[in-house]
């Protein structure tokens, strides 16, 4: 189970386990004998059978290319096509399909109309959910009825205790939020900064929701990177 270092309103912190959720499949694909089937990745072509290589080998002459295709089938590698692809490594290739050993990365920023507005070094945000500095309560409470339609809470994580102490810690949080019928903005820095779940990952805003039922609690961290607002009008 992944962990997040989280602090309550008093600034007391603990490392807490959290669970993501994925949809379970209610349907299964089977063959005619009712045995389950699965998908496998196979090779359709290789770099040597790519258009770029065949084109270069034939001096970019369409007649020569056509002749080569008819005579030698260079676009079909009978040894490799249809082979299952196991583990692979990632490499960079240039336009001529040569391996590249040194690259320069540039991040291009486009506006909503697709116009280039900036070029910069790519940001590589470090994960911040389990650092020495805990994710804090910002103190900013949002009534559920006021906030549910302001942001799109794309993912949810359930926070759970792993000891009696963390049970008390989380139950208290859930109770406060339940009684306030509100979500609390949680974040890095002073409590309003974004959360980054893995190195190089995307930043997200996080809102904590708490519910209680007797001695049981439900603490949900709602993750958002989008405000719910209308699309810009086309000019």
């Amino acid at each position, binding site marked *: 189970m*992944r962990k997040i270092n989280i602090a309550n309103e008093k600034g007391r912190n603990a490392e807490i386990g959290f669970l993501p959720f994925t949809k379970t499949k*209610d*349907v*299964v*694909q089977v*063959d005619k004998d*009712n045995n*389950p*089937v699965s*998908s496998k*990745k*196979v090779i*359709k*072509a*290789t770099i040597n059978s790519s258009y770029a290589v065949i084109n270069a080998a034939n001096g970019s002459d369409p007649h020569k290319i056509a002749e080569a295709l008819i005579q030698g089938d260079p676009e079909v590698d009978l040894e490799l096509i249809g082979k299952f692809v196991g583990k*692979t*490594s990632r*490499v*960079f*290739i240039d*336009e001529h399909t040569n*391996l*590249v050993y*040194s690259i*320069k990365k*540039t991040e291009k*920023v*486009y*506006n*909503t109309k697709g116009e280039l*507005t900036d070029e910069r070094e790519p940001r590589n*945000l*470090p994960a*911040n*959910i*389990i*650092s020495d500095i805990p994710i804090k309560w910002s103190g900013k409470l949002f009534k559920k*009825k006021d906030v549910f*339609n302001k942001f*799109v809470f794309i*993912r*949810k994580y*359930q926070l*759970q205790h*792993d000891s*009696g102490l963390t049970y008390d810690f989380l139950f208290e949080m859930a109770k406060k939020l339940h009684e306030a019928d509100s979500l609390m903005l949680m974040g890095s*820095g002073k409590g*309003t*900064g*974004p959360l980054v779940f893995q*190195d190089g990952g995307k*930043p997200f805003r996080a809102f904590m929701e708490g*519910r209680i*039922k007797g001695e049981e609690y*439900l603490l949900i961290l709602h993750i958002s*990177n*989008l405000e*719910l*607002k209308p*699309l810009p009008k086309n000019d």
Partner: protein
Amino acid sequence: MAKALNFKYQDHTFSANIEKVDRKKIYGYTRVEYKNEKGEICSLANVTSDGMSILPSGCTGLVTVNADGKFVSRSEIQVVDTEGNPIEKLPSVFDLEAIELSESSIEEYLDTNVKSIYQLSFLDDSIKATLDKSQVLSFKFNYRKDYQQDDAFLICQDDHFFVVTGFKIPFEYVGLEKQFVEPVVVEEEEDDMDFGMM
């Protein structure tokens, strides 16, 4: 343009076109470009584990195989439920005469992992005056014919109506007797809430 969706809620029927909402359309987007020392654009490719083949984008495909690794053609494949009963595809919401809306709650909506968001444009705007803008309405959604359906909610924000689709998580409350366990990495900081975050 796709067909309009036809909704039915209590005594009201109304139609609306939908348009997908995403970050790209709201905030813009970024793209990382890779160049070699000569300034030529480069792209990512895969190398097979034996190091013998380079597979640029588009050089792999998916096939369906049985437990023995033998190819199974599409026409032989059947779809069954978890008990092994054959099932049929459910219709697309665009093909339904009317999508029945039922009352839901903010909690149910909050319990949903979001897949897609669509903005509604009503064919007749007068329905806006009839719908309660603080209410959450729910229905089942299939953009295309499919074996499974998504959960969907119709909600309003500032006089604009949206359909949010996804799947409802069956959250369970936990008490002292239920426990769990293990960790990960580093830090960052910022002050204001900036949803552009680019």
